């Protein structure tokens, strides 16, 4: 990466609307060759971003979806001992060469590749508390050693690492220190219009207005346990369009609310609100001052 002056620049893609600060953070991470650490409400497009960064800078992508059982070493490589035993018993394959049974994980593959990769480590907070610490050196120096063969895998091209977290666990300081951090803020109505426009280009503006009013109103309600997010809005609009719901119908009711509210308590809470004769908002002025500046 000697030619760091003309590093790859990301500026969003056709299908992904990224805010200015987010673009800056992505470019910052690319230029500094540090992992980009993304946090934000679920459904704000953290995982999607990696895919679009890869598309935006035209690099192939490796993704590693972390689970609660994931170990840091799994991402580097796995030594398939059972396969080797099996081969030894039945005389298949070349048992003598351990290399045949070493399978690189997503991190290992992105290091070993001949081309620069985008590496997504998704939902790192799902794993055990020590997981990020176990990856420190690997992400810092971009190399690791395969214990069984003594081979050192070091990154030919430092991958663009994107790490997402849903904030279920706090991550260690030493890990965070090495990252560029960005918090994906919930989109404001204007940005949301652009986002919806990408997914549903033929939506009438007046209908969209009603949809957004209802949507942001729902998000304002503190009684809801899980606030609807962008991806749910997109689904909801799709449902509304398929169902042929007119603008008038939407003004006074919330059809297909199941697309927005995902827990029973939330649906019930909305039901009681309507039973008690609570009004649904009809225009932006019914919403709080935050939307009426």
């Amino acid at each position, binding site marked *: 990466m000697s030619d760091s002056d003309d590093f790859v620049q990301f500026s969003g893609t056709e299908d992904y609307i990224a805010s*200015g600060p987010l673009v*800056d953070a992505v470019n910052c991470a690319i230029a*500094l060759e540090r992992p980009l650490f993304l946090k934000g409400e679920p459904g704000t497009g953290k995982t999607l971003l990696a895919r679009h960064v890869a598309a935006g800078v035209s690099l192939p992508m490796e993704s590693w979806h972390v689970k609660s059982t994931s170990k840091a070493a799994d991402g580097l490589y796995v030594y398939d001992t059972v396969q080797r035993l099996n081969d030894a018993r039945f005389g298949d394959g070349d048992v003598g060469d351990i290399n045949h049974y070493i399978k690189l994980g997503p991190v290992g593959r992105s290091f070993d590749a001949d081309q620069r990769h985008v590496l997504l480590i998704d939902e790192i907070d799902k794993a055990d508390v020590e997981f990020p610490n176990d990856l420190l050196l690997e992400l810092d120096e971009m190399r690791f050693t395969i214990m069984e063969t003594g081979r050192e895998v070091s990154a030919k091209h430092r991958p663009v690492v994107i790490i997402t977290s849903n904030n279920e666990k*706090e991550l260690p300081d030493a890990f965070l220190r090495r990252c560029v*951090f960005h918090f994906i803020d919930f989109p404001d109505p204007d940005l949301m219009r652009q986002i919806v426009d990408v997914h549903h280009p033929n939506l009438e503006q007046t209908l969209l207005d009603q949809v957004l009013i209802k949507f942001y109103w729902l998000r304002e309600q503190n009684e809801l346990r899980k606030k609807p997010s962008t991806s749910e809005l997109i689904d909801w609009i799709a449902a509304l369009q398929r169902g042929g719901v007119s603008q008038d119908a939407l003004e006074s009711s919330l059809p297909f609310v199941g697309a927005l509210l995902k827990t029973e308590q939330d649906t019930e809470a909305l039901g009681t609100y309507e039973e008690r004769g609570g009004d649904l908002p009809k225009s932006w002025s019914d919403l709080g001052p935050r939307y009426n500046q």
Partner: protein
Amino acid sequence: MFLDLFYGLRDAGVPVAIQEWQALISALEKGLHGSSLERFYYVSRACLVKSETYFDAFDMVFGRVFHGIEGSLPIHDEILDWLRDPKAFEGLTDEQREMLDRLSRDELMRKLFETMAEQSERHDGGGKWVGTGGHSPFGHGGEHPTGVRIGGPGGGRQAMKVWEQRKFREYRTDSTLDLRQWKVALKRLRHLTRDGIASELDLDETIDETCRNAGEIELVFKAPRRNNVRLLLLMDVGGTMDPYFEPVSRLLTALLEERGIREFRSYYFHNCIYERVYKNGFLRHDESIPTADLFRQLDSRWKVVVVGDAAMHPAELMEAHGNIDPRAETETPGIKWLMRIHDHFDRSVWINPDAPSSWEMTHTTRIVKRLFPMYHLSVDGLGEAVSALVGARTAAA
């Protein structure tokens, strides 16, 4: 000015270190801030701050350090005058005047900015952004000739808004102890319970090792999993404990999420423990169990953690019928119940959220402290308490 930001952040409790600082410096060297104050704000925030809980503190420090930047632009009235009427400016050759005629006002502006950007860069590398960043918000000026108010409130205000509105205030927690630290402290609670003599066949490892050996059987033994930590948590609620609601509930969360603990129970009490302990913080009689039941149901191997400030009226602790709640029958003084708990269970600790310096000042705290080893409700204190629960017995305890 940069260092002001760095130390300002540290003073405000934002954990920034040299490593983040270097990241920012190299980001600036690469020109990632694009010579704009607003983008500089985002780039520096991305490099320096690693949690949205510190965004608000960052906004405040940033605002303080860079406040008034827009007013101190290195552009002089002279230039302003010249811009207003370029041809009237003395010291231009006729040739230049002719050139100016051909230049539109917009182009002229752009030229000016380009030149100035170059100059200030050459002049002071370190303070680069002051030069470029400072007037860059006006870089858009090219499109709005009338809007070019150099040195006045231009686009810079817009950028300023971002951090002046402090929209991340709600994320602020001002937490001195975070959940992760709790968990790390609690982790020792399970680690220390797994040692012993390797007497159990480890099937997984045996298969693994055998495979590594390409088929030659290799037996692996491991210590039996004596994950016998059973924990009883007794929490004081209400009154003087109200200010500590946050840390106590965090401790509870950490304990509930701690998978290493074999069994876990928690009960509540108010001020002192008497005949009954309560299943939740509402302290209702129908949701309580007799304290004596704890002794019947739980054997002495259970570890007991009492969380409370132990500060109460001496009568509440020492006298019969001392319970502050008149509805509850309390013939036995509270201290008796505490002694029974202490005697029944092998290991018990008292975790006190009050500052350790104040413990000696309260009569009842002194008494309780003589009975239970007392630790502070902090990460260090919790670590010590865990050692006292599972570690080797020390002579003092």
